[in-house]
């Protein structure tokens, strides 16, 4: 059996094991152990615990559980509803502004929380009923939150980008900074579509139960609504400035942000002891799950390399003599399809060891590719069959049929595809900002 045939067999077996429902971490470890045993002999298994341990033994990885802790602390508080309220008071008076406010709330909350499904759930829980009460069609209400939630993996700090950075050896700080401009462009595009789609459909004159403004809110009302969420936004801004200025490493920034988030939630929301217990367990569960996936994917990458699959794939791509953009087009189509089946974390960790050598051969900037890949994975989050955000929205708005949620997401998927085209034509939109970083 040639190395390439072996690679196809490994990828096929991995897909099968994951589709059956074996958790990604255990699935990748199981496949690696079985293939090492059969194709490299029992002696090769000695490396298994060493490789898994070394994969999680690094300073950069400290950022991951700390940002997870930050997201869990803020997610468990009432910050999401306060954020939604503040966004509505600032933006709700413009035509179709309620949808725009929800998209903005998603963007801001995702910056604090870093997780797409958590953002969609937190903002959608209050946002969807309010939009529907104002006459926003269910498909638009669901689609906007579904798509807005995907911004969680693009707008920094993003757990997905930390994993991409660790997997590829790319600067996490640069990836964070690189996500800012594309994130803002996509928020503007989503908002413009929301205003267009809301024309004539939304009853902007109906006041809501939550004292929602139908006219431009007074400055003092806006200030009062923003007061509770401003510290959280300043916290994220501070982390980004520290990373941008080279003042702190991502792990140091994450430590400061996690500690300040705990203090802010204590001071602003005064939660009870039970909530802290839940937050602690939830943060540990998510961190353990992510770190076990990273450890197992390290073993998976080691297996592919030991069996010469990675090298053969790279050689095949070089021998094919493709134009670099034809290669990139093929990679994008593959990621688009694979992203419909695999969650972002798995996609990065399974695919990157295979394609990174070719990306480097074709001279693609890994920071640029990290952002583009993140947008491709955003599309996967809102497309069937495993689009997590679709099911999150169905869970919080069970009376909206899945068909309508899907229908509402389609225009946002098109916008994300157009964004990828734009960033491919003008890569500077992604690479310019991180290029200015201190130490960059």
């Amino acid at each position, binding site marked *: 059996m040639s190395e390439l045939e072996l690679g196809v067999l490994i990828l096929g077996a991995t897909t099968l*094991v*994951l*589709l*059956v*429902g*074996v*958790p*990604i*971490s*255990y*699935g990748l*470890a*199981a496949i690696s*152990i079985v293939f090492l045993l059969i194709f490299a002999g029992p002696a090769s*298994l*000695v490396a*298994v*615990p*060493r490789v*898994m*341990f070394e994969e*999680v*033994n*690094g*300073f950069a*990885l*400290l950022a991951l*559980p*700390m940002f997870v*802790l930050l997201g869990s602390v803020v997610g468990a508080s009432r910050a999401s509803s306060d954020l939604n309220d503040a966004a509505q008071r600032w933006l709700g008076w413009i035509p179709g502004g309620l949808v725009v406010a929800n998209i903005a709330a998603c963007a801001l909350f995702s910056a604090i929380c870093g997780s797409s499904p958590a953002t969609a759930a937190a903002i959608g829980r209050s946002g969807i009923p309010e939009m529907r009460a104002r006459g926003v069609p269910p498909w638009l209400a669901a689609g906007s939150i579904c798509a807005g939630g995907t911004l969680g993996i693009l707008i920094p700090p993003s757990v997905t980008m930390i994993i991409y950075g660790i997997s590829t050896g790319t600067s996490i700080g640069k990836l964070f900074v690189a996500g800012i401009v594309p994130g803002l462009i996509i928020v503007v595009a989503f908002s413009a579509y929301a205003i267009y789609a809301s024309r004539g459909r939304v009853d902007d004159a109906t006041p809501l139960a939550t004292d929602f403004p139908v006219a431009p809110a007074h400055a003092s009302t806006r200030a009062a609504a923003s007061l509770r969420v401003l510290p959280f936004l300043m916290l994220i801004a501070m982390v980004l400035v520290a990373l941008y200025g080279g003042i*702190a490493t991502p*792990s*140091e920034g994450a*430590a*400061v942000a*996690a*500690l300040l988030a705990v203090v802010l939630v204590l001071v602003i929301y005064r939660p009870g002891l039970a909530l802290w*217990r839940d937050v*602690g*367990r939830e*943060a*540990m*569960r*998510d*961190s*353990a*799950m992510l*770190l*076990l*996936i990273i450890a197992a994917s390290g073993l998976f990458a080691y297996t592919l390399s030991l069996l010469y699959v990675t090298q053969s794939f790279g050689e095949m791509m070089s021998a094919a003599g493709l134009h670099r953009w034809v290669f990139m087009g093929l990679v994008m189509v593959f990621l688009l399809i694979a992203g419909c*089946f*695999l*969650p972002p*974390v*798995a996609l990065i960790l399974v695919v990157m060891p295979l394609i990174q050598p070719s990306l480097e051969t074709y001279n693609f900037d890994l920071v640029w590719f990290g952002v583009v890949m993140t947008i491709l994975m955003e599309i996967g989050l809102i497309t069937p*069959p*495993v689009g997590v955000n679709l099911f999150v929205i169905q869970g919080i708005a069970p009376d909206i049929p899945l068909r309508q949620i899907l229908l509402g997401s389609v225009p946002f998927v098109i916008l994300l595809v157009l964004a990828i085209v734009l960033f491919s034509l003008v890569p500077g939109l992604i690479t310019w900002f991180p290029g200015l970083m201190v130490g960059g």
Partner: protein
Amino acid sequence: MNGRASGCGFAGFARVASFTALWAACAMILTVILVLNHMIIVRLLGEPIVWHLELAIYLTIGAFFLGTPYAVLSRGDVAIDLLSALLPARKGQWLRVAVLLVMLATAAYLVWSGLGRTLEAMHSNLRSTSLWGPLLWPVYASMPLGLALACLQMLAEISDAISRLGGEDRQ
């Protein structure tokens, strides 16, 4: 704690998983403090303290492995549940048992191989190559310990799933 496996004499495992997750969370808070302390001291004195960051990394590794039983208990592992959602309830339950068996076999192998590495480090007095140079076996031990607890939780889940299937048969 969701107590799914509590009716089968496995409630103790769930309590242990929950307890270790809380201790792991405390270790994470300590890690945050260590990183902050290191950051402040480096900025003030201009010299890095070796043991702060190394201890923070080891605490994170320990916390992560000790958090795995709770991830099993709360079904926190990332998985594609598409097939089980499409299958009828009973077949879905059998699939869940099969998935848990694959997880158990994998975790059991990792416990065994991790234990071998820990004992080897213990016997050879293996230390970190840093200036601080702590013994490495306690760090290595977190892998077999955490995953052994995860194995027990998987056994509880398998028992729970099989007893549910048995209950359906009796009905």
